């Protein structure tokens, strides 16, 4: 699985934030997106995941190859850990949640309702969802928020296993995750206010 992005431009709230973004992500590799807050990492990831159309540019892999995970985990408070995972497995048409439970150490919590989990446990459950999607490219937005050191290590191992299996990961993060990865600083791609002729471009 290979993801090639060429000359991509994306907008947030109708305002262009990044332009000319280009990179290649091969199977078995991970790419960490760096850059200050508000630069547009989330916007870029949402564009890749197909949640918003790009202003310009090409994305070689369709959104159906990507599993997107963001700040919000999409958990239902009144469902148990197992039910939450099983639901996403059925939505994505995959079988078996055992691997997800094991890799994120959720086995003991399986019967607990999501509302009774700690913030870090919820986060782990949200990340475990990635495994049941069965999709090769993980698109992750700040996955380690509210994880403790042990959980970050757990997550790092899960990503590493995913990469060894031929998958790829694109991660916006500020910390070191404990596996080898290329880095891409998106700051140079910040959209420049275009020279104003007049009007139509001033709408964008």
């Amino acid at each position, binding site marked *: 699985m290979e993801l090639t992005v060429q000359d991509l431009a994306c907008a947030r*709230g109708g*305002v262009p*934030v990044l332009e000319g973004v280009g990179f290649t992500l091969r199977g078995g590799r991970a790419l960490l997106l760096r850059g200050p807050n508000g630069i547009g990492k989330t916007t870029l990831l949402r564009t890749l995941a197909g949640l918003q159309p790009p202003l310009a540019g090409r994305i070689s892999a369709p959104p159906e190859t990507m599993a997107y995970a963001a700040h919000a985990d999409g958990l239902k408070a009144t469902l148990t850990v197992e039910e939450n995972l099983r639901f996403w497995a059925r939505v994505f048409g995959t079988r078996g949640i055992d691997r997800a439970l094991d890799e994120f150490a959720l086995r003991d919590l399986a019967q607990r309702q999501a509302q009774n989990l700690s913030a870090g446990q919820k986060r782990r459950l949200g990340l475990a969802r990635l495994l049941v999607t069965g999709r090769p490219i993980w698109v992750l937005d700040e996955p380690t928020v509210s994880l403790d050191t042990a959980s970050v290590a757990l997550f790092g191992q899960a990503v590493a296993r995913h990469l060894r299996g031929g998958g790829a990961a694109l991660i916006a993060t500020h910390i070191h995750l404990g596996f080898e990865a290329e880095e891409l600083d998106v700051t140079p791609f910040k*959209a420049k*206010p275009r020279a104003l002729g007049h*009007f*139509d471009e001033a*709408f964008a």
Partner: protein
Amino acid sequence: MSLWEYANPQKFMQTSAAVLPLVWGLTVLSLAVGLVWGFFLTPEAVNFGSTVKIIYLHVPSAMMAINAWVMMLVTSLIWLVRRHHVSALAARAAAPVGLTMTLIALVTGAIWGEPMWGTYWAWDPRLTAFLILFLFYLGYIALWEAIENPDAAADLTSVLCIVGSVFALLSRYAVNFWNQGLHQGATLSLDKEENIANVYWLPLLICLAGFVLLFIALVLVRTRTEIRARRIKALVARERMA
């Protein structure tokens, strides 16, 4: 030269600035002639007495109430297909004008209805349909106001306009079915039985033209305002980014 060139905001601003004085002039002229003629110089009708003079406001405003929605539908479709901002902004600009027209048609209809039918409000199909249209205008305008992102607002209001059009037609049919009404006969008999077409028709025609021109003038003015407001928004966002 393609018609779509006028969808370029700058071109639109230039053209509209050039034609606006002319449109305003014609509007004032035709409304003045039509309304003065209609109000002062037409005789009373046998069945209606002097209330027939209300027709010079009631019919044109009712016509524009519907035409404004049709125009919004067309510009919404143009926006969805061709992504011309001016088109979406013109739809937004037209809505309050259509709302006012609907209100005028409703109020004059109610005032006219009192001497004719003995009641200000009857759940006559046409009146009811206009009341529903009024609600559609309110919803449409409220949705525009509620959404922050201007492109998303344009998209969503366009979707609402299309779906709303279908349901407005459906409501029109449903309301007809629900109450056969008093309206239709009254307007028709005026032309047929008494055959005084020219006396009433000519000033009515001029008033219709006046309302069309007024609508165009208002939509042009308001679209210019919306374009400027949009540009302010874009510039401010740009300042914040830099």
